[in-house]
């Protein structure tokens, strides 16, 4: 009699062959036959029966040993609280974080060091402030001394944030399934974003006490920021050029924008973008500017070989313009002499303006001088448009605004905008619709708080900005302040509307209250003589109400329902 193999005996012992054992349905007929054969053999063979018993004991021993080993030999980590694995979420978060940070870097660079500065100067220069040059010069002197450190600190902050976010992202997905593709994807997205065709260039900063010279043979493929005493740029700059110095000479070609702050500036190169220059003396000699010219200084001269494809906006004591201006010319100066060609309109506010022989104006001449005869025209001057004398600048300012259609259009737009914003505001934040002015001292207190908010918040924002790393916080503060300023009159208007309608019905609705209130406020703030004061009063009361609501947010009763 041949014994079954050890395999058959083991399977028999462990019911691996038993078709009646639980979960053995899949065995089928073949397994059942095998089990019966071994079963019949074991019944009559003592050796095999003994072997089966031993195998069963072994199985039990092995199971017990494995179970026991789990308790004693394997160190079980503390499971903590159950949290579903977040591989994908972490990956997404990491990617979003890197993306946002990269975007922030690009935004900061563009917004802060290109758009903001250039835009800010353009805006400042566009307002007719006699001391704009002095103010700008002071700001740039400050920037020259402190700006580099501010920039480096800002950059360091951004890099630190990037580093921390990246570390967080990597650590959260490290050693998890899919970590490698996650990291690769993150790096890929980050690299792609950074490597996108740049709106701006990399930045080179040169800060030297004495002088900086960019030789004619030199080409710089970045945006260049120079602070020094004497700057001489003979080479080409493939980017923007920002220079703050006492004397600046630019003869090379600049592919981007040119911004100069100095005592004396001489420009005779080719500028691919706009040119902003603040200086005592600004001279253009054989210069070719593709963009607009924004100039502010004491003496400004543009020679006959210079030209710009854009507009010229000039604010100075004297302006001698012999160049070719493709578009409009806007000038505010004590004395203006034009002998060049202007493609568009000439708009001048000055004491005296002369258009010498061969000067041409493609559009109108609109000028404001003390008397109409302060405009002197040469014999051969060509003016294709009309000449419009608008009187003294102060007379122009004092025109009656109520006679202008634009005034009513803007008021209507303000009303509609305020109504929509107010409806959204009081729908989303119903507690704002329940604010109320107290009696007597309480109202004065509210106004005082509003006044404090109105005055102190921008000061605080400026102080925060000076603390170098607070620029983003300062920006947010200013935005919040401006928003609150806008909302203040709406909040007060709603309060007024509610108070008026409360006498007519017990529950005045949001829409009629807002409508009535806004009409009253819009009329009040536009009243002659009193409008300004009422506007200020409405603003500080509204700000005070919002500030008090926010300050007392913890002690408010919870919203019903």
């Amino acid at each position, binding site marked *: 009699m041949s014994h079954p193999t050890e395999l058959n005996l083991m399977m028999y012992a462990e019911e*691996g062959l038993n078709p009646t054992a639980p979960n053995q349905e899949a065995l089928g007929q073949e397994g059942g036959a095998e089990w019966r054969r071994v079963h019949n053999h074991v019944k009559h063979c003592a050796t095999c029966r003994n072997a089966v018993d031993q195998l069963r004991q072994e199985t039990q021993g092995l*199971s017990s040993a494995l179970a026991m080993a789990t308790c004693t030999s394997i160190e079980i980590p503390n499971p903590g609280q159950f949290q*579903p694995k977040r591989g994908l979420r972490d990956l997404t978060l990491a990617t979003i974080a890197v993306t946002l940070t990269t975007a922030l870097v690009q935004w900061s660079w563009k917004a802060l060091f290109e758009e903001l500065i250039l835009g800010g100067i353009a805006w400042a220069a566009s307002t007719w402030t006699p001391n704009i040059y002095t103010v700008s010069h002071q700001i740039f002197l400050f920037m020259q001394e402190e700006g580099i450190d501010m920039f480096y600190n800002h950059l360091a902050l951004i890099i630190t944030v990037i580093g921390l976010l990246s570390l967080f992202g990597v650590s959260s997905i490290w050693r998890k399934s899919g970590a490698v593709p996650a990291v690769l994807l993150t790096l890929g997205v980050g690299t792609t974003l950074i490597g996108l065709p740049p709106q701006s260039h990399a930045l080179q900063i040169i800060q030297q006490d004495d002088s900086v010279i960019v030789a004619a043979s030199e080409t710089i493929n970045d945006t260049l920021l120079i602070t020094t005493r004497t700057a001489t740029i003979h080479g080409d700059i493939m980017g923007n050029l920002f220079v703050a110095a006492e004397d600046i000479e630019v003869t090379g070609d600049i592919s981007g924008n040119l911004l100069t702050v100095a005592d004396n500036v001489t420009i005779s190169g080719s500028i691919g973008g706009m040119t902003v220059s603040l200086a005592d003396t600004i001279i253009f000699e054989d210069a070719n500017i593709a963009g607009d010219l924004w100039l502010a200084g004491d003496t400004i001269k543009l020679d006959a070989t210079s030209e710009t494809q854009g507009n010229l906006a000039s604010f100075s004591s004297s302006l001698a313009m012999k160049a070719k201006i493709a578009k409009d010319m806007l000038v505010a100066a004590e004395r203006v002499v034009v002998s060049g060609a202007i493609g568009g309109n000439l708009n001048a506010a000055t004491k005296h303006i002369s258009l010498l022989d061969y000067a041409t104006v493609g559009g109108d001449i609109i000028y404001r001088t003390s008397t109409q005869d302060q405009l002197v025209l040469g014999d051969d001057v060509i003016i294709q448009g009309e000449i419009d004398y608008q009187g003294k600048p102060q007379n122009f300012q004092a025109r009656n605004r109520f006679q202008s259609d634009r005034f009513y259009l803007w008021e209507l737009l303000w009303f509609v905008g305020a109504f929509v914003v107010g409806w959204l505001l009081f729908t989303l934040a119903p507690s704002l619709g329940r604010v109320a002015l107290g009696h007597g001292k309480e109202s004065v207190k509210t106004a005082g708080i509003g006044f404090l908010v109105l005055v102190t918040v921008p000061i605080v924002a400026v102080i925060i900005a000076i603390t170098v790393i607070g620029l983003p916080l300062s920006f947010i503060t200013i935005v919040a302040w401006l928003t609150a300023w806008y909302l203040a009159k709406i909040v007060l208007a709603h309060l007024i509307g509610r108070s008026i309608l409360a006498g007519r019905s017990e529950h005045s609705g949001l829409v009629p209250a807002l409508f009535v209130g806004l009409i009253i406020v819009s009329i009040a703030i536009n009243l002659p003589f009193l409008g300004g004061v009422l506007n200020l009063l409405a603003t500080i009361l509204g700000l005070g109400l919002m500030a008090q609501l926010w300050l007392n947010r913890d002690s408010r009763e919870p919203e019903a329902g």
Partner: protein
Amino acid sequence: MSDSGAFEVLYREYYPRVFALCRRFLLANERAEDAAQETFTRAYKAFGHYQPSRPFWHWIAAIAPRHCLDQLKQLGRWEDIHVDSNAEIERLYAPEPLAIDVLIASENQACLNDAIDDLPEKYRVPLVLAYFVHLSYPEIATLLGTNRNHVGILLLRAKQQVRRCLQQTTEQKTLHGGVE
């Protein structure tokens, strides 16, 4: 109790066993931790389909091995379990002496753990499935993509290797004891 609350209770109760199971498969604590976490995550997502009449251990013990096997395959540690199966069957005709006494006499759990951990994956995995998870032969066969006979072969080879390993350890201990 809410579903998430009930699951939290089960998680705390069964985490050690699931971790131990994953550890038996993957042999590294960090990987086992991740695998256990993944097992519970999958279980959490499918918790709506869980029938409370069925033991939770059986339910989750069917999830963990699949993930662990996937991990082994990803790590390149899962070899073809069918290689030389005929030759193995040929060699099994003669019954080998059982080492059950050695196994039972082994007081050192560490030796058994080491012996199991030293097994190749193709033996260790079915052994764990059979004697730790208590899956039946057909269940193991389905999981491993083979048939019940081959599962038997793998289990037998696994036990033989464990026996040999334990025997050698016991002999070495005896030898060292004699010298001392």
